[in-house]
């Protein structure tokens, strides 16, 4: 799988050094919306200049090249074990070639592996697809925004959050209020709702792979996505937390069925530098 390995190295390079077009458009839209001469406008201008410089020079646009998270759709008959090996090899090579910042640290020895591989590192999710093509989606998830994520077990009395979509709305607002400007706003938020906490955490993060221009298929959920963008922007935290009109560019929600006794909500916070990309093989 030598050629596939090269393809994944290139995917790493592209994802680390360029912002997806839909995200860049959203940042430009935010800039147009901020008051001229404001700190928010200055911040967004620096962000756009940075995006351009990184893309033109193939350098990482953020020094935190994050935790690589792979979502792999595998056609019937392809070995997941071999694919995993190829991803690990490509990760070692990309760390040298792009280069990526080595981010995989051993819990016991505190030693950095130096090549972005380790136990459970990168994160890889496989799913079998009925199609003939292998589809590899990669997100480089920065830790500053990962640290701002929250999980809620509804009901939450302090928030008067009951087991309904109104309760979910309060949880998302609470997460952003707690994050303030620390996780590099304007944010993109992924929300997962369902029966178990491992499941909703994965579901929430997966929503960050959605294009900012799409909306949830179910009317009630799509309405909540729009409502939340509007509510969050009322908070006034603004780009990089210096105040302003844009605190969130997008909210993406997905739901699973839940157990009668459980109502888990997970919120995955994405920074403005939402680096994601796809390789079709």
């Amino acid at each position: 799988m030598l050629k596939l390995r090269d393809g994944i190295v290139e995917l790493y390079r592209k994802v680390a050094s360029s912002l997806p077009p839909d995200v860049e458009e959203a940042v430009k839209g935010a800039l147009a919306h901020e008051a001229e001469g404001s700190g928010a406008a200055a911040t967004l201008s620096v962000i756009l200049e940075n995006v351009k410089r990184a893309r033109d020079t193939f350098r990482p646009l953020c020094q935190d090249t994050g935790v690589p998270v792979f979502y792999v759709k595998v056609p019937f008959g392809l070995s997941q074990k071999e694919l995993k090996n190829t991803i690990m090899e490509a990760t070692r090579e990309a760390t040298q070639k792009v280069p990526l910042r080595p981010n995989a640290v051993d819990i016991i020895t505190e030693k950095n592996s130096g090549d972005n591989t380790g136990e459970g590192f990168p994160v890889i999710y496989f799913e079998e697809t009925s199609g003939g093509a292998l589809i590899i989606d990669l997100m480089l998830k920065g830790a500053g925004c990962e640290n701002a994520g929250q999980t809620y077990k509804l009901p939450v009395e302090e928030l008067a959050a009951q087991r309904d979509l109104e309760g979910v709305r309060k949880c998302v607002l609470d997460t952003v209020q707690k994050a303030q400007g620390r996780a590099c706003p304007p944010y993109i938020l992924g929300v997962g709702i369902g029966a178990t906490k491992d499941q909703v955490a994965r579901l929430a993060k997966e929503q960050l792979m959605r294009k900012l221009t799409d909306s949830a298929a179910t009317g009630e959920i799509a309405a909540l996505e729009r409502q939340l963008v509007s509510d969050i922007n009322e908070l006034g935290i603004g780009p990089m937390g210096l105040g302003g009109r844009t605190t969130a560019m997008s909210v993406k929600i997905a739901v699973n069925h839940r157990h009668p006794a459980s109502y888990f909500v997970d919120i995955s916070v994405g920074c403005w530098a939402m680096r994601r990309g796809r390789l079709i093989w």
Partner: protein
Amino acid sequence: MVEVKRVGLPLSAEDAAGLRVGDMALLSGRLVTGRDRVHKYLVEKHPGKGDIPFDLEGAVLYHCGPVIKKTDAGYQVLAAGPTTSMRVEMYEADVIRQYGLRGIMGKGGMGDKTLRALQEVGAVYFQTTGGAAAYLADMITEVAGVWKLEEFGPTEAMWLFEIRDFPAVVTMDSHGNSIHKEIEAVSFEKFRTLAGKI
């Protein structure tokens, strides 16, 4: 448009005292980096000034774990934006007092403990743009040294950078003001309204 102040590093006591929240600054001179491991080490081991190869008196400490490439000509900084400062809140006040720092730079601001230490020693907190790592790396003109590279690795080591016209905003000053604190208070009121009575 706000006036931009040109600030030389290391910071003099007068310069630090003259900076106010909201000031836009262009920093030039030398600064050191340090993040989670450097802070833990400084507070747990208390290395003396002679044990650290750089003079921290009056220095600005930048919360940054850069992407560095080693070339034949030396180290090249490819990406060097700020990391979240709040993670070192439990250490920073002690570090500022013990080593005589006059500036901290990072993103997201810090808490009351650090704000009090800034006021006590006459130091400031600069915020620079998170994620703008390629842009900010272009303002670093030289890697002048590194400490603890072998032990901590390139992300967590203390780097000595020469910078020129490095853009930052004063968001916490030596007079007890913090933009982060103000914005959090305003957004909390909004949050209470939006989330209903809680």
